[in-house]
């Protein structure tokens, strides 16, 4: 039955096909691909392989864990929680009215003792707790085009409820900018002013590309409700680094923001006097405020978690490697032994 169907496979390229393809034949062209015989590696979890894998993981993880732990321990950190301490005794019961009242004296002095030698640069952070910078309403309330470009200064559609004040658009608009952190810190060591460098605390990419150099604050904090820090309307946005840092919203409700850098070493037992202006209202939501001075390591700040995690996992793998070795020695199984096939194991099979 030779049909005159168009030959789809005449002259097959398939090299290993012994049968020469007939003309008009519909025989599928042979190739390793179409026959699903591409050369392939077939990994099998042999005991040796498994034990070596576990050993490898533990060999890699345990040193990393140790190194991370050391790195974290090397970091010297001074944390000072001040949100209650900086409210005068008589206002302790009504902190909100204290902080909202324009007449109260918000100044406060703190003493920090350096526990260990701190090498420069020493980073100054403020840490807020229970402040949801990742809240949906909050995160959305900003206008990136307005920050970037002076010509779209009235692009405030996404900024509600802090979009305009007195009928004029706010630059920078939105809840994030409005709630800019406005506590200030002044450090002195031995009655000498400790210089805090506030330049270069934000990402360079933000300064260059996200915040325009021709955008100046306008009509900012002019509404009936003041949320936070006011901005100098003569300073371009790309140089308002506190704002830039603040606008990079934190991922988690407990976060630190970089305030500045102290570019000198601190010796153990030196006492730093901090004069701070306690302006920022975290009292309405029971937020905590901390001042943090910290050095850094290659791993970042002080956090033992990763080191411990690595040590745990590495140790676990080591234990697994050992126990698999023992189990394998006690109860081995020959791989690929047909007598283990279910029909060979069951009596009654022929």
């Amino acid at each position: 039955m030779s049909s005159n169907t168009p030959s789809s496979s005449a002259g097959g390229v398939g090299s290993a096909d012994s049968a020469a393809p007939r003309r008009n034949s519909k025989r599928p062209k042979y190739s390793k691909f179409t026959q699903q015989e591409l050369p392939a590696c077939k990994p099998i979890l042999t005991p040796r392989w498994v034990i070596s894998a576990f050993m490898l993981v533990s060999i890699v993880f345990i040193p990393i864990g140790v190194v991370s732990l050391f790195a974290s321990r090397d970091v010297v950190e001074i944390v000072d929680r001040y949100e209650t301490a900086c409210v005068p005794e008589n206002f302790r019961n009504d902190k909100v009215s204290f902080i909202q009242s324009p007449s109260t004296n918000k100044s406060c002095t703190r003493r920090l003792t350096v526990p260990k030698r701190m090498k420069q640069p020493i980073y100054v952070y403020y840490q807020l707790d229970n402040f949801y910078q990742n809240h949906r309403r909050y995160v959305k309330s900003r206008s990136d085009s307005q920050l970037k470009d002076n010509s779209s200064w009235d692009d405030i559609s996404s900024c509600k409820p802090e979009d305009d004040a007195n009928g004029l658009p706010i630059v920078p608009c939105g809840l994030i900018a409005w709630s800019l952190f406005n506590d200030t810190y002044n450090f002195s060591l031995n009655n000498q002013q400790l210089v805090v460098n506030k330049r270069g605390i934000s990402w360079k990419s933000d300064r260059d590309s996200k915040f325009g150099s021709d955008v100046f604050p306008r009509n900012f904090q002019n509404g009936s409700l003041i949320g936070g820090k006011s901005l100098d309307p003569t300073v371009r946005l790309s140089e308002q680094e506190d704002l830039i840092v603040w606008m990079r919203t934190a991922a988690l409700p407990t976060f630190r923001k970089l305030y500045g850098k102290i570019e000198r070493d601190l010796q153990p037992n030196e006492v730093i006097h901090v004069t701070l202006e306690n302006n920022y209202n975290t009292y309405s939501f029971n937020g905590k405020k901390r001042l943090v001075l910290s050095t850094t390591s290659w791993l970042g700040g002080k956090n033992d978690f990763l080191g411990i995690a690595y040590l745990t996992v590495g140790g676990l793998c080591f234990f697994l490697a050992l126990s698999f070795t023992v189990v394998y020695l006690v109860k081995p199984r020959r791989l690929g032994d047909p007598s283990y096939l279910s029909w060979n194991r069951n009596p009654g099979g022929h």
Partner: protein
Amino acid sequence: MDSKTPLENLYNIEPALSSSSRRNNLSANSKSLGGNSIREVNFSDLGPKPVKYGSRGAESEIYSMSQREINDEDARLIQINDPVKTNERFEFAGNSIRTAKYSILTFVPRNLFEQFHRVAYIYFLVIAVLNQLPQLAVFGRFASILPLAFVLLVTAVKDAYEDYRRHRADKIENNRLASVLVNHEFQQKKWKDIQVGEIIKIHANETIPCDMVLLSTCDPTGVAYVQTINLDGESNLKTRYAKQETLLKIPEKESVSGLIKCEKPNRNIYGFQANMEVDGKRVSLGPSNIILRGCELKNTTWAVGVVVYAGRETKAMLNNSGAPSKRSRLETHMNLEIIFLSVFLTALCTVVSVCAAVWLRRHRDELDYLPFYRRKDFSEEEEENYNYYGWGLEIVFTFLMSVIVFQIMIPISLYISMELVRVGQAYFMIRDTQMYDEPSNSRFQCRALNINEDLGQIKYIFSDKTGTLTENKMEFQCASIGGVDYNGGKVSSQDQKDGYFVQVDGKVLRPKMVVKTDPELLQFARSGKETKEGSHIHDFFLALAACNTIVPLIVDTPDPTLKLIDYQGESPDEQALVYAAAAYGFMLIERTSGHIVIDIQGERQRFNVLGLHEFDSDRKRMSVILGLPNKSVKVFVKGADTTMFSVIDRSLNTSIIRATEAHLHSYSSIGLRTLVIGMRELSTSEFEEWHSAFEVASTALMGRARLLRKVANSIERNICILGASGIEDKLQQGVPEAIESLRTAGIKVWVLTGDKQETAISIGYSSKLLTNKMTQIIVNNNSKESCRKSLEDAIIMSKKLTTMSGTTNDTGRTLGASLTPVALIIDGTSLVYILDCELEEMLFELACNCSVVLCCRVAPLQKAGIVALVKKRTSDMTLAIGDGANDVSMIQMADVGVGISGQEGRQAVMASDFAMGQFRFLVTLLLVHGHWNYQRMGYMILYNFYRNAVFVLVLFWYVLFTCFTLSTAINEWSSVLYSVIYTSVPTIVVGILDKDLNRQTLLKYPRLYGAGHREECYNKRLFWITMIDTVWQSAVVFFIPLLAYWGSTIDASSIGDLWTLAVVILVNLHLAMDVNRWNWLTHATIWGSIIATFICVIIIDAIPSLVGYWAIFEIAQTGLFWLCLLAIIITALIPRFVVKVLYQFYTPCDVQIAREAEKFQARSESGAVEVEMNLILDHPRQ
């Protein structure tokens, strides 16, 4: 040839006949039972194999119910050669066709409408629409629509391309030319302009443009041959006839007019019913008078016909529909799990909204001034709430928003991936060289694209016998003539190698197929009919040559002096008999509507065919009434022994009858198909009586089929036995081995055949279905009560036999291992009483105890009934395989239908889900491809559940740290691309290409197929383990960065990038851990996806207008980021790895052991298997 004046001759002999169209009816092909009556689309009985049916009266009565006459109201009136008048009252379709679905204008709406028929897309759409509401806008407008738009666009482009090709094909088709009669001359007209009622002339080898009733042909008797390969795939020529009344009209000269009243357009290509009024006479038309669009005219110089159906109303167009869609078992299971996932999704959303509610309530006094909430908007004159709609509504909104954020929990992309994977799997099945059938030049065909994985779980195979297990190439083996058995056919001497031939006009005429002959019988046949034996033999072969519907075709050969006779017909049995008759010197030379010419031992004789009663499944016999040259009239009958012996006159030749019965028994016990042939001479009065009855019956308008059957029964009686024939139906290559493999694999093979019990049993033995070790239980009963009793006995016996031999569990693990397997043999008569009543239950119970079930003498509908019997009662998968029209109902009933694209036409293939050339390919299909597909699909579904759930859970954990406000650290673009780019390709590629075992191993250990039966790759337990693993992994992904970055300056975008990358790498490595075979494509896609993700994240973070600008560059500079990534990946994967190792090492499944064996024993055992199969090209290394 002397066929010049056949009509005159006929008229002379029987002038009375000329008044009717009877002769045309006589020669109508055997397929249309009951003459011209139309049948509803009922494939079950249209089969071309007369002897195969085992249906009983009960069914046949039901069938005949479907026969109906034309009522006026649903008739279609066609004025011949008057298209204007024809079309003025009714809107008949023109002949232009449109297979294209869309036009440029309608494309967008219609295509969208069709695409949204999928539930998945509607889900997408609802989510996207929800997201457009300002209160709920979680994602940006564009990002939320993108995935849906992408999928829609891809599908639309694909549809548009396909439609463009259809448009082009339509255009070519519509602009073809045909000769149409306009003003008494034939003019060329485009196909699309042809109208119903016009007269068209077709020339040889032209394609017929529309469905036409034949008016006249070049042949004086009005015969035309058509090839219907485009319609039903059958390559043999079919004969079609023009009616006597219109035969002599020449449209160019005289105006032809008349009225055709025919049925409404329908898709039954084997049925047509109409009346034609021409010259005041009323003529009935049947399927043999119509030529259909798409057929080609062959061996006929020209034919003229009138258009009755055009364009989309033609039968060819009406049949243009796809295979019925089935849904795979795995998908059904999966849908259950999806329901669970929806519950889980709802639970997550509820948790979020309840938490949000509590939070809002607790802070309700602070909300106005909270810096990160600020409910009040002070900028307006009046302080008003901004974007706050009250506590209750906020909760509802939170719920809806969480649905939007967690939407991919329901793995909608899975449906699309599954379709792609199935297409890929089908590609490889079609390309498999081991499923290519050389003799018929046919590849494997995948007609249904959604049940690939079901092939890996088949538990029952229902197989037809003839044409499926056997080749359906009938070969005449032996004959019992006059009580003498001639079966020495195997010794064919050299001199008769070319067989019998005759010489005509100096040219040699020879049958196309050479049949081995018995020398003794040949001698007798040549000796003439003087002796008693000789006359018996003469009549016997005359009956073989005449009593059939075979059309001889003379085929030219390169040698001008040699011509071959090709016997074309629908029944291979008849072909075999006619070839056999020719080999013994009774060569059928010519068949027209009124006479046949047979060359008897070199002497050309002409017989008038006075009447023909076609085969029907009720009578199971056919008869022909011949006017012999010596003016005597004889009726020759041929049929199945059961019905023949009831019409044979037992008082005559008792010894011959007895001897023949004995021979029949021995023939069928060696697996031959038997037919009994008888004859009777009719007296003039008898003939007259029959003739007038026949005349009335064949022109009757009501109940024609029933009347004709009655007439046939009246003449087919008191038959004198001539003998019996034995035809061998050869087993297909490799069938015993295939059945052996399938049964070892734990699949129960049931054979359902229309053949006799003895034949069926003998085929059973030769195909190794039955073995000598088996105990046979035979159920043959004639009443319900006796059926009940024998079933009860059989159940007790089978239980005794199987329990004796140890435990048999349901999983099929020890199936076939019992010491005394039981075979059940049951016949159609008993099944009549058993099916559709309470006995079904008993039969099922009995059949479950048996390792083999053989049903013989079953009717097509009974086949479906048996399949339904099993399907209803078990959750096991059933597969039906068959080749003929009588298997269609069974194929459609079974979970998986396989058609054999062999000898018997294409209906089985058209109805099937998969089609292939040989039964033995079933082994490759099930054991190899089925196993692979099942394993791949099962893993893929689980993996997709896991993949989406892990991502959703990471989002969920984060929501717990954002005041339950559904903000995401992960960039919205990354969320959208996660299932589109980041993780989609590897799972599809692995779903298409991964192989847990080699083809060689799977074939060597058929029992590995049990993995599918035991649902090893996808089950509830695996699902739950996967889900627990998912929760662990998501927790690791989320909490390691959370704890590592707690109280640090990390911003949301940076940690979001870390989570994105961690999830994607983890999910891809998880897949990598489970891949069984790593070829370059797997490597490319898995590592490629990870790299692509990095690139995408970098690109997204390089867009200054997004919040996360430059985040990845900042965070990637820190060591913490990389350490977190490493810790996440290792920690997340450890539990899975440990469980996997323990499981594989201490409770290994069969597949695992075989895989190890494949790897470690390949070298030591090379040889046997590899030689047999293809070369093993991939050398395992390590």
